[in-house]
Structures are given as structure tokens and as C-alpha cells.
């Protein structure tokens, strides 16, 4: 389940970096998914249409990949649905409060050597490590 896959990881990562670079070249913006999606949900965002189309590209590609290469998606789940809902709430609230997620802070911000993004990335990695440690090794069982 936890096979280390360095080559696809590097290749996929390079595609993500390329997409972020193309978005900067075409639209001059940070390709941060939480920020783009938050702007779609906020009324009165001036560039709401292009944010919507970026997110639509993500979702549509998910459907396409599902039909061509279903192994890219999980078939078994460790987290229960109520836990996934709580996870979504925390991810949504936290990324808006902290102005970014793995893409905006982790990829784009670190590439710009932004201090805020370095601090944010170190913080969400730390609480992510701590959360999985508590869930898997202290509470065990459930997952």
C-alpha cells in the first residue's frame, strides 16, 4: 500500500510545476488550488470565471483519468465518511485562514522563497505528521 514510487512522483511533480509556471505565464497568478477554489465560492471575485475553469479542468481530468487509468484512485478507504467530512471542514477553513495549501504555499510559495509559505508548509507538515501519528499509533484500531 505504501510503495515508494520516486520516478512517477518526480515526473508528476514536474508536470505540477509546469502547470503552475504556465498559469503564471498566462494569467500572472499563483496556482494555489485552495485560493482559486475559495475565489470561485466568493461572490464578487473579479476573475471568478477563470478560477472556475481552472477548477473545472481539475475535476474533468479526474473523470477522464478514472475512465482511462482507474488505478490512479483509491478503491479501499481507511477513513470513515464522518471523519472525511471533518477532514474537509478543517482543510477548507484552515487553507482560507492560512491563505494557501500544498500547491499555493508548498509549491508556488517555496519556489518564490516566501517566508510565509515556508512557515505555513513547515506548520501543516508538522500537524499532518502529528495527526497521523496520533490516529495510527496512539489510537490505532480505526485505521
Amino acid at each position: 500500500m505504501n510503495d515508494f514510487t520516486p520516478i512517477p512522483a518526480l515526473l508528476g511533480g514536474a508536470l505540477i510545476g509546469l502547470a503552475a509556471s504556465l498559469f503564471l505565464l498566462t494569467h500572472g497568478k499563483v496556482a494555489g488550488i485552495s485560493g482559486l477554489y475559495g475565489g470561485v465560492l466568493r461572490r464578487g471575485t473579479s476573475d471568478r470565471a477563470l478560477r472556475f475553469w481552472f477548477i473545472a479542468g481539475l475535476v474533468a481530468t479526474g473523470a477522464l483519468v478514472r475512465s482511462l487509468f482507474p488505478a490512479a484512485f483509491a478503491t479501499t478507504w481507511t477513513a470513515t465518511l464522518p471523519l472525511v467530512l471533518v477532514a474537509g471542514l478543517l482543510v477548507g477553513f484552515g487553507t482560507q485562514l492560512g491563505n494557501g495549501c500544498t500547491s499555493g504555499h508548498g509549491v508556488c510559495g517555496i519556489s518564490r522563497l516566501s517566508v510565509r509559505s515556508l512557515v505555513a508548509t513547515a506548520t501543516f507538515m508538522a500537524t499532518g505528521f502529528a495527526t497521523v501519528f496520533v490516529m495510527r499509533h496512539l489510537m490505532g484500531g480505526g485505521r
Partner: protein
Amino acid sequence: MKSNAAAFGIGALFALGLAVSGMTKPSKIEGFLDLAGAWDASLLFVMVGAIAVHFIAYRIVIRQPSPLFDTAFHLPTRRDVDPRLVVGAALFGIGWGLGGFCPGPGLVALGSGSLNAVVFVAGMTLGILAEQVVARTAASRRPDLVRRSSP
């Protein structure tokens, strides 16, 4: 129109990168976050690959007079590390560890139609809307604290 089509295509490329790298599977995220278990370093390699490309391309792109479909670049300029940044990132990390999804992979997995992804994105949407309401309320009480939306 060209601008929206480009945004769609770039979103698709971004999603392809997430799928190729395996990040659309929560087990890969959980494997990375499980330092005390059978640690899977793949996510670190995704970050290295993405940052290696963007670190260089960013420096070339911002030398252009303007983006193709806009009159100016819109990049974050803040340097201050405030409590909102740290608390927000901390909450995000907890949710990331609980569900194994961050926003990008969650939205790509939504397209795959999995129930877990539907529930995750529903929760994420509510969380975003809740924060926007809290931020608006705070801004109306304290107009000096103006919020900014990008990292």
C-alpha cells in the same frame, strides 16, 4: 475566452500531474505523513519535482513585461508571519492527516466520482464558506484588518 480555455487546460495538466504522481490516492499521503510507520517518501519527490521546475520557470516568467492574458502579475507581497497564517496552516495539516486529501487531489478525486471525495469536497466547501463568513464579520468590526486571498 482564450483566457478561460487556457485556465481549463492548465487545470487539466495540474490534475494529470497529481494523478501521475499518485497523489490522488489518500494512502500515498497518509504513507508520507506516517513517519513512525512504513514511511513513503513519494510526496517529498513530488514537491522536489514541482519546485525544481517552478523555481526556475518562475524566475524566467516574471521577467516578462506582463502575463499573456493580463496586464500585470498578481503575486503575494506579504512578508509577515501572523497568527492567522500559522493557525490556518496547523488546522489544514490536521485535516490533511485525517482524510489524506488536500484541496487539489480532493477536487481531482471528485471527478472520479468516489463517495469519499464527494464528502471531502462538501466538507471543504463548507469550511471555506464558514471562514469567509468569519472573515467578513471580523472585517466589518475591524476594518483595519483587511484580508487577502492568495498565499
